[in-house]
């Protein structure tokens, strides 16, 4: 099989139960090669379980997973080609982090001298160069996360799984990690999970949404976010009721969601003969007449809207899920 054209990760009919809880139910999708693939879902949707099965930490009850054409139950063929940032996995507290990462690289087959050099470089990259000779007990939660990312980036893995890579990081580090992920796109397939939908939308070209252990949506982000006639606007100020009524009275506007004012989500009614551009232009003209200047303009659904639509979630539930930034 030509690995350049075959999916980097192929998941087929994977199910997993923990006692009477169905963590994953018949999950199937492909991750295209050299893509940044986002795995989304509410808490408990099964994202971490799926990552754990791909990485062979957990055994699936049913189904198969292939990474780069190899069954993941046989890790020997994937050593050095697949890496992961697992969630909440601990490093050894008393062994210097440099030594731990060098140990990982020597397991991969690298000699100690070049492994030390590479590890030092990688630790510098994630801002942990000064902690190289200290044990993990000296690291904060955010530093630990960066250390986990460092070990996932070691070597030249062809597929990297990142389970919530930016959770718990400060904004500067989040930006740094996102840039690192974007730099990987050329040579690596990245599968990442996150609660931060804006982050997924920014980074990923493909996405799968899990809900209650099932895949409810899967496809290119661009396709998912343009599959309905939606208009997201951020205005310079909130609209009052009269202004809102005027906007709603436009023929092309089916409804306006003002709950997050001055962010508004408009559903456009493209009845027979109505053109999308004309409908958008009428909305913008009306807003400018009212003196409410659009600061942000987004056609189609945002990933967040799509996510809420397919998972049946709402803002309150989302608020209960802490995002990393």
């Amino acid at each position, binding site marked *: 099989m030509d690995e350049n054209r075959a999916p980097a990760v192929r998941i087929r009919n994977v199910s997993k139960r923990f006692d009477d809880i169905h963590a994953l139910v018949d999950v199937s999708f492909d991750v295209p090669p050299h893509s940044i693939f986002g795995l989304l879902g509410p808490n408990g949707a099964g994202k971490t379980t799926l990552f*754990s099965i791909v*990485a*062979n*930490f*957990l*055994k699936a009850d049913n189904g198969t997973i292939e990474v780069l054409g190899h069954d993941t139950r046989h*890790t*020997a063929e*994937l*050593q*050095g080609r*697949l*890496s*992961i940032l*697992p969630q*909440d*996995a*601990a*490093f*050894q*507290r*008393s*062994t210097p982090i440099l030594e*731990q990462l060098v*140990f*990982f690289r*020597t*397991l*991969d087959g690298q000699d100690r001298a070049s492994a030390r050099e590479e590890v030092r470089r990688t630790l510098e990259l994630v801002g942990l160069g000064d902690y190289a000779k200290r044990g993990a007990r000296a690291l904060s939660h955010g530093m630990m996360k960066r250390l986990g990312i460092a*070990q996932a980036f070691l070597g030249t893995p062809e597929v990297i799984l990142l389970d919530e890579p930016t959770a718990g990081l400060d904004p500067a580090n989040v930006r740094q990690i996102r840039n690192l992920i974007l730099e990987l796109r050329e040579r690596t397939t990245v599968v990442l999970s996150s609660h931060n939908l804006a982050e997924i939308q920014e980074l990923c070209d493909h996405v799968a949404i899990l809900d209650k252990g099932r895949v409810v949506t899967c496809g290119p982000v661009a396709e998912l976010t343009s599959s309905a006639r939606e208009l997201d606007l951020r205005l310079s100020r909130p609209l009052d009721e009269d202004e809102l009524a005027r906007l709603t009275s436009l023929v092309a506007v089916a409804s306006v969601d003002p709950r997050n004012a001055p962010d508004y989500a408009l559903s456009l009614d493209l009845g027979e003969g109505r053109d999308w551009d004309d409908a958008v232009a009428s909305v913008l003209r009306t807003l400018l007449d009212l003196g409410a200047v659009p600061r942000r303009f987004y056609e189609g659904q945002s990933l967040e809207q799509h996510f809420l639509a397919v998972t049946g979630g709402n803002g309150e539930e989302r608020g209960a899920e802490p995002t990393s930034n």
Partner: protein
Amino acid sequence: MSVGDIDTRQLKLICLHTMRHSLRSGSGLVYFLLAMFFGLFVANAVISPFELMVSQSGGAGPAEVEQGVIQFARPIVEWAIAGGNVGPGTTAWVEFLLNGRPALLSAIFFILLFGTPLLIPFGGFNQTSGDIGNRGLRYLLLRTERANIYYGRLLANIILAVAVQILVIATIALYLGLKVRIYDGMAITTWSLQGLFALSILTLPYVAVCAWISASNDSPMTSLFVASAVIGGVLLAAFLAQLKWDGGHWIGWLLPWGVQKQLFRPELSIVVLTGGACLLYTVVFAWLGARKFRTRDV
């Protein structure tokens, strides 16, 4: 998880890393100190009364001293071999240990023979359970096969346990040779080497039992408790069962308790056979643990 999964290069790396980490983190060091303390405490408990006896006896000749040593060591050896009831089948064995070999060393070895298995859980309880619980193994699982992790750590624990035996027995042998001076150097050396062989080969199945228990749960404290309870429990159960019916001692065969004293038999063939039995126990327990570790969620 078959032998075919094992990569000797990775096995060696994991073994060395585990030993370093074990000493650095303190758990290995605690076992090391505990086993050293126990070994030297036993040696002191056996040798000190004898030294006192010699110093109080004034100018006793070598023959009297030797007889004094044998009288002193006899109850320990007789109890260990036959529960104090030496019969026709065990007389030659007892005499071999008391007259044919340095009696003080024989007494020490028999106490260590019963004490060492009870100490092993303190060194072997956390081979994998802690890293299963805190998910630390997840950084390794894509880098090597589970067999390498399991057997690499088992090997590291065996090496540490045997290293402690070597230190304890070398210290005792040196003390007997240089300070007590009632046996000639060759007798001490050869009997110490056989004692070291016996205690080392005895260590293997008990470390393997701990590896199996450690691979079966994700809490180090549970592992320690279960390993101690199993190892001590089998001995206790065999002892109590023996009081009720003659065949009760067979319970001891669940672990090497039932056979281990044969490691100090005068007949080489029986010693070799017993060593083989210990290896067989080791293979079975290690395999059961490896099978569990291969199939479980980590």
